[in-house]
């Protein structure tokens, strides 16, 4: 073949940068209600299109439409909305606490509340979630005591993890919340292994794995999909595509060439692309995948299309790499606003009730934060004992670590 011009490297770029007008025209958005709902025993190849469409239930007029409408009760809707609002207020409070020096770092999940909250409420109590650091909604939706979350974030004297872990790296086995690790993607194959174990034991529990768009590039993502494809364990493989991995847009993770849902088809895993800001769609697709897994029909891959509304973490300044107001133009809107509008439309909610809820949760979280602060913060007050750093390395303290603990005590 004749070479016409020199080779050049393709380096994907986001559609907009700081100072540009936000532009999301590259995001393909199906109309609400358009995606069909297959039976749970469907073969992956017959629903290929669902990896490219966008499963949506709530339309632009806040109506719930189409086959995926989950028909939740007033009580269920209220619970979902409450969990999301509480998650957001929690985030705002802890963001502020970090700025006040009460902890070293915090990450918000602003804009992504629907995914963790709805899926937690769609699964069962004994199922195990393998979250990343941006699924705090899993605990909040489970009515986990927020004061204990804050104790952990403050690394204080009541921190169950003894001050050994970074803030928000919770571990709550009894709430189906696997210990969070800083190493990205690792929990994805672990979730598959947990689900394999459940299948090996003839149990009926299922696992739910989470990974972000950026971390799908880690080898763990591929390994998890291979093992899920081979052994067909009961696992939900959630890819939260919030468009950003710190400063890198999802095109750098490979999302420009192909979306993340369609990767499941290389492994013959039924795969969906879903509106992650649509509480009803998240609930319905999670429930579908849950039923499929529980009935021993195997794994499901779900790409949740959403937007990381806040900074990556308290150490990040997104105005250096993306338009400052881009979330205002995000075509899938805000998950709380959309569910709220739907409930108001149904006549089961009002602006006044919403404000009351916000006030009540603000007070609740403020009180919890105050209570936690009495147990100490990173900067001041009671701390975990220094000796805690030697605990739980092994089940029993080996001699060489015991000696080091003694050395530390002598040198203090």
């Amino acid at each position, binding site marked *: 073949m004749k070479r016409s011009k020199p080779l050049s490297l393709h380096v994907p770029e986001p559609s907009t940068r700081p100072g540009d007008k936000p532009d999301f025209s590259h995001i393909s958005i199906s109309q609400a209600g358009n995606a069909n709902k297959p039976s749970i025993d469907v073969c992956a190849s017959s629903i290929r299109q669902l990896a490219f469409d966008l499963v949506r239930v709530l339309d632009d007029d806040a109506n719930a439409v189409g086959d995926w409408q989950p028909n939740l009760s007033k009580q269920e809707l209220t619970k979902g909305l409450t969990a999301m609002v509480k998650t957001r207020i929690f985030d705002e409070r802890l963001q502020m606490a970090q700025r006040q020096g009460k902890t070293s770092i915090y990450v918000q999940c602003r804009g992504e509340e629907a995914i963790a909250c709805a899926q937690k409420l769609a699964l069962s109590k004994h199922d195990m979630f393998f979250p990343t650091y941006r699924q705090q909604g899993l605990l909040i939706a489970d009515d986990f005591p927020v004061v204990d979350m804050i104790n952990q974030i403050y690394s204080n004297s009541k921190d169950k993890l003894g001050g050994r872990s970074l803030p928000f790296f919770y571990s709550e086995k009894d709430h189906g919340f696997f210990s969070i690790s800083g190493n990205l993607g690792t929990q994805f194959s672990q979730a598959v*292994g947990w689900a394999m174990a459940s299948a090996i034991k003839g149990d009926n529990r299922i696992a739910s794995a989470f990974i972000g768009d950026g971390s799908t590039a880690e080898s763990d993502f591929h*390994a998890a999909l291979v093992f899920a494809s081979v052994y067909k364990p009961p696992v939900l493989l959630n890819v939260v595509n919030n468009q950003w991995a710190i400063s890198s847009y999802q095109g750098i993770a490979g999302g420009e060439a192909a979306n993340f849902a369609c990767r499941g088809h290389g492994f013959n895993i039924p795969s969906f692309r879903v509106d992650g800001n649509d509480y009803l769609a998240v609930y319905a697709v999670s429930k579908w995948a849950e039923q499929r897994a529980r009935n021993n029909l195997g794994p499901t891959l779900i790409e949740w299309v959403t937007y990381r509304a806040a900074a990556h973490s308290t150490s990040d300044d997104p105005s250096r790499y993306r338009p400052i107001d881009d979330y205002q133009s995000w075509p899938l809107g805000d998950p709380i606003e959309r569910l709220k509008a739907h409930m108001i439309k149904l006549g089961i909610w009002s602006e006044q009730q919403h404000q009351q809820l916000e006030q009540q949760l603000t007070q609740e979280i403020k009180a919890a934060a105050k209570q936690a602060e009495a147990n100490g913060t990173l900067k001041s007050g009671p701390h975990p004992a220094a000796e805690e750093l030697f605990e*739980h*390395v092994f089940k029993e303290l080996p001699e060489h670590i015991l000696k080091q603990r003694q050395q530390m005590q002598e040198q203090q």
Partner: protein
Amino acid sequence: MAESKLQTMNMIEAIKDALDIMLAKDDNVVVFGEDVGYFGGVFRATDGLQQKYGKSRVFDTPISELGIVGTAIGMGAYGLRPVPEIQFADYILPAYDQIASEAARLRYRSSGEFNAPLTIRTPCGGGIFGGQTHSQSPEALFTHVAGIKTVMPSNPYDAKGLLIQAIEDDDPVIFFEPKRIYNGPFDGYHDKPVQPWSTHPKSQVPEGYYKVPIGKAAVVQEGSDVTVLAYGTMVHVSLAAAKLSGVSCEVVDLRTLLPLDSQTIVDSVKKTGRCVIVHEATKTSGFGAELLSVVQENCFYYLEAPIERVCGWDTPYPHAQEWDYFPSPKRIASAIVRSVKELDYE
């Protein structure tokens, strides 16, 4: 305790016997890895186990070391007791993140809420013309990681007892199996016929369940002038070297590298006043450096000579130059003699 009946076994048979016993004893034990299931393993260590226990207990995996260990950690978190195999220690590195960042720290970061009671079996070591990627001894990459136990047996009796102990241990264990001594105790004389295990007393393995403690070294030969610290294949090579040197050597088989049995080492060196450390792995930052510091810190006033280290050279493991690389009885004996001569200068 009633005397168990003894059986003659090589290392492979002893390892398979340990797996068999644990699969029978504990429903939560699962065995898996590449070619481990139907075929019974490339070294036959799992031969017949799938047939006996079924495919949900003993199974083949995709060729993905990180997937093997990652799923094993998830199974451990569920409550199983996984015994994954990595076909060669040379290929454990794709799983290093899962081992070092996850298995090793799961207990620590969750305050013991979750743990990773894995036993990762992996054949290691050289002396088999395995070249660069079938000969390595990466133990120091694991002894450096807080939260993992590292074990390497040197004979069938220990292999079975240590493996049973490792599987029952609630902490993650890397179980290195020196493949050079799977079939017989190799003493480093590569030009002489290799003896089968049946001629060695440690091939007499009790039937049924027994354990060898993790964290305990064994003095395999008592002596008065030099302490030789070795593990794996090098235990046998060191015994041959001790004989060749004509020096009264106390040969210690460490058996467990972490947690290390410092007491046995220190007691021996205080008695002999000299120490030669032997391993196949490369020298720089190898486990021998840690052993050297343990001896130096604890036996300084007892040492009569500089501590010697006989190790693999600081190169990748070569193919044609196998016997130039592999620490030989002659090289070890020279170090032993050198160590004794230091005293004569006084």
